[in-house]
């Protein structure tokens, strides 16, 4: 077993609205990633994926606030650190982030190299410009980006190139955990492939030690990550290996999510595409019982009554359902 790179324990963060209401977009999430591993987080829009990504960095600004739980990066608890300490010691060099809209992630009036310089100097003011340039050039070369990009502005780059540049910048300090929030969603298939290849390359070369990949595209996760978590209404409803999650989902929501996408595997294409009826609950007033109950076709009256605890299986799988594994499998078989 490898070293644990990121260990998150019951993390709870909230948005505070203008009217002082609390919205718990990340509600008791626990994550554990070992060195060299990647974790996928899937879920529909608004389930809290992106908020989780932001929460994991331990750097909060309004309207997002920390509530409870711990985040440990390579054994070091960062939840108690002061914001400036996190900024200097954690962001960029321990945990790095690739934003959802990487297209607009770069300052339009700044050259790429100048930004890289700012990033590196923010962590180590003593580095010379030449050292930074050499590092950037070398890293860009390894990642297959032309050196000329360094002297350009973001507007002069194509969408795919911009995205890969952002990835290269995010990982320039060789972070232990890379959080990629839908890094390829806005791209065409070719650019998507290049991005995925680049992320895998970063992992193989050891420029990143572990990765969290957030997306709504499950087939992508199956190709990229070792494990997958499915998130619903701020909670993790199921977790397992990529293979288990795609071919043998246990939680009714995961099953619905898998059923609502085209898995590019033989046989799966013939399966009928089904949508999950209904909409996710309002997190200002989360349901008392199972959060998925009113959309679940297998829900029982008891599901509405209490919070559902996590069930852990022997092989490390986790799911959050009132029904037990055996019961779930029986219901699915009867269909």
């Amino acid at each position: 077993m490898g070293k644990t790179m990121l260990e998150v324990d019951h993390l709870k963060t909230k948005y505070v609205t203008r009217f002082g209401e609390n919205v718990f977009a990340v509600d008791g999430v626990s994550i554990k990633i070992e060195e060299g591993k990647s974790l996928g987080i899937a879920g529909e829009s608004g389930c809290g994926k992106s908020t989780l990504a932001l929460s994991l960095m331990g750097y909060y600004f309004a309207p997002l606030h920390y509530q409870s739980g711990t985040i440990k990066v390579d054994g070091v608890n960062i939840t108690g650190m002061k914001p400036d300490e996190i900024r200097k010691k954690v962001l960029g060099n321990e945990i790095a982030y690739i934003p959802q809209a990487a297209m607009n992630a770069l300052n339009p009036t700044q050259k790429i190299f100048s930004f890289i310089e700012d990033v590196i100097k923010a962590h180590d003011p003593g580095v010379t410009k030449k050292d930074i340039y050499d590092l950037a050039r070398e890293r860009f070369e390894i990642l297959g980006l032309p050196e000329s990009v360094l002297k350009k502005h973001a507007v002069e780059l194509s969408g795919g190139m911009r995205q890969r540049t952002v990835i290269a910048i995010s990982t320039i300090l060789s972070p232990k955990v890379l959080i990629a929030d839908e890094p390829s969603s806005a791209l065409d298939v070719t650019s998507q492939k290049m991005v995925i290849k680049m992320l895998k390359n970063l992992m193989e070369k050891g420029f990143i030690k572990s990765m969290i990949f957030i997306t709504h595209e499950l087939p992508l996760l199956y190709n990229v990550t070792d494990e997958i978590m499915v998130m619903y209404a701020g909670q993790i409803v199921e977790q397992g290996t990529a293979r288990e999650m795609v071919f043998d989902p246990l939680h009714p929501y995961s099953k619905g999510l898998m059923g609502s996408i085209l898995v590019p595997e033989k046989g799966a294409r013939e399966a009928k595409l089904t949508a999950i009826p209904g909409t996710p609950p309002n997190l200002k007033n989360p349901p008392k019982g199972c959060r998925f109950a009113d959309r679940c076709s297998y829900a029982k009256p008891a599901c509405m009554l209490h919070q559902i605890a996590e069930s852990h299986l022997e092989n490390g799988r986790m799911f959050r359902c009132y029904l037990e594994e055996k019961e779930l499998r029986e219901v699915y078989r009867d269909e």
Partner: protein
Amino acid sequence: MGYKKYYTNKIIWYLLTLVIAVVLNFILPRLMPGDPVSAIAARAVNGMTDSTAIQAVYEDYAEKFGINLPMSTQFAIFIKNAVRGDFGVSFSQYPRTVSNIIASSVWWTVCLQLPAILLGWILGNVLGAVSAYKKGIFDKGVLPVFLFMSNVPAFGMATVLLYVFSLKLGMAPSSGGYGFDLIPTASITFFRSVLAHYQLPFWSVVLITIGGQAIGMRSMSIYELNADYVKYSRFMGIKDRKIVGYVFRNAMLPQITGLAMSIGTMIGGALVAEIIFSYPGLGTTLLAAVKGRDYPLISACTLIITIMVLLANLIVELIYGVIDPRIKAAQQD
């Protein structure tokens, strides 16, 4: 290189605009009702009774001012002379030449307006940026006060300043560019007098400029503060102070257009302040010219305004290509 072509194209358009503006400058004052020459001739013939002699005087003036020629010929002469910087003889301040009148008044205006607009612009941008970033008292208190002031009409502001600081407090002289008992020389007394007379017109322009610039800068800053690159830079561990630097640089860009526009229109804007403070600038001159139906002087004044507006815009466009890579990229297409 598409860059060069772009600028050549731009300059051609500006020249075309200039030509149209010059034609309008020439024609419009001449379409005003009334005949300035008869007014001047009337002064000259005051007391004369011989109608033939009166007619002769009138024709003499008409010929001197060239208004007996067809409009097209007048225009050709006007252009020919204007290119050499000769705008003819003033009707209302005959026999002074227009060039002479303008040369003596234009610097008063430029020296009053340019620093005032620049200072107002800078203070406005700082206020806008601070109220966007710090919020609180700046956003809820200081900015609204300046916004209120910027919506006070120019004559209102000038009158209030005049009343409070000159009449009531006696802190500054009420009119003129320098003490009426002084002759313009390079002496310290004269300079002091100019500076004292400078205060009220100067601040009346500055105070009005701040609010409008601040509100624009505030919304641009708020927009930029929420941009994706701000969030990304934060998560890359860059200090907030540095990020604020990015934000304000970007938010400033549209403000440069605002600056160019106010510099271009400063003579028109100077009118009210100059008239109220009897400041010897171009605004006062323009007013006198309009009142005296002084075609050459009006044309020359409006021509200067036109050229300044066009020049300011052209410079902004040229600068933009250098400071904003997005525009540069668009221009190269």
